[in-house]
């Protein structure tokens, strides 16, 4: 499977609909401090099923919805969509392209979609099981976290190995 697109709208600092198209190989993301680069990583983990607000640097899940700036009011919805090329059927979904979407409304309501069909968060998480890619997979290394692999107690490290082996 190949990641083809990441679309955000109202997610953290991405107030306006913004998309990132990905090709094979290495995509580097650069920019000044605080411009939104790590927010992209949060968006990927969120749509893959991360449920801990704290692990997305917030205190409650509502914190991922764009909450205003000097020139804009806060918004009522955060939405992220990941689109994959699934020609190799690595994802257990019989479709050449698979899009997963997560929405959170300020009312507290959530929506989850796979290829525009409503589903549960559980279904999104299960879709990615066994692909090596997941909201807490070792394949996503967050800022400041790389050293944990060698510093953490041997029990925490165990969790990484269990997932990988």
């Amino acid at each position, binding site marked *: 499977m*190949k990641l083809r697109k990441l679309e955000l709208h109202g997610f953290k600092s991405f107030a306006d609909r913004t998309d990132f198209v990905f090709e094979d190989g*290495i995509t*580097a993301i650069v*920019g000044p401090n605080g411009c939104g680069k790590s927010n992209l*990583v949060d968006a990927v983990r969120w749509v893959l099923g991360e449920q801990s607000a704290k692990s997305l640097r917030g205190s409650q899940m509502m914190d991922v919805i764009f909450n205003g700036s000097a020139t804009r009011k806060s918004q009522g919805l955060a939405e992220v969509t990941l689109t994959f090329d699934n020609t190799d059927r690595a994802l257990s979904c019989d479709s050449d392209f698979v899009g997963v979407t997560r929405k959170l409304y300020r009312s507290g309501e959530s929506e989850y979609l796979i290829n525009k069909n409503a589903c549960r968060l559980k279904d999104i998480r299960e879709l990615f099981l066994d692909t090596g890619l997941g909201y807490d997979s070792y394949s996503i*290394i967050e800022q400041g976290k790389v050293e944990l692999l*060698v510093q953490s107690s041997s029990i925490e490290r*165990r969790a990484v190995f269990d997932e990988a082996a």
Partner: protein
Amino acid sequence: SRELFLTSFAEIRERFGEFFRKLFGGGRADVLLSDPDDPLECGIEIIARPPGKELQSISLLSGGEKTLAAVALLFAIFRSKPSPLCILDEVDAALDEANNDRFNALVREFLVDSQFIIITHAKRTMTIADVLYGVTMQEPGISKRVSVKFENQSAAVA
């Protein structure tokens, strides 16, 4: 399942040693089961000895050395169980220029199996990118994407 774990573990051990030597230009590293009779439950120890140095607890390594050892272990796990996508957020922050280059070279070895998204402030890391995106906040508090492709060596605002 115990067999499966032990097979992966053996493979990770071997790769870890190999990638460590590649990143450090020598030395030795290993991962060990703290209780080989209880492989599915016991803790996992790491030993790492940079070239020319004596073996000591991994806590004594420098910031950059710890990052490099962690990267070697991470990529050893990747080799054993490839992931289609790998996202690295400022993983090179503690590396000096020489180590940053070695890290970049190792990343390129994995391009066969995986796509990479790398967030960085380091110009040398930017040079290995096939595609470069900038993120800006011209309007305060609002993130915006800027495309910067290398082929034509100029920033194209999209």
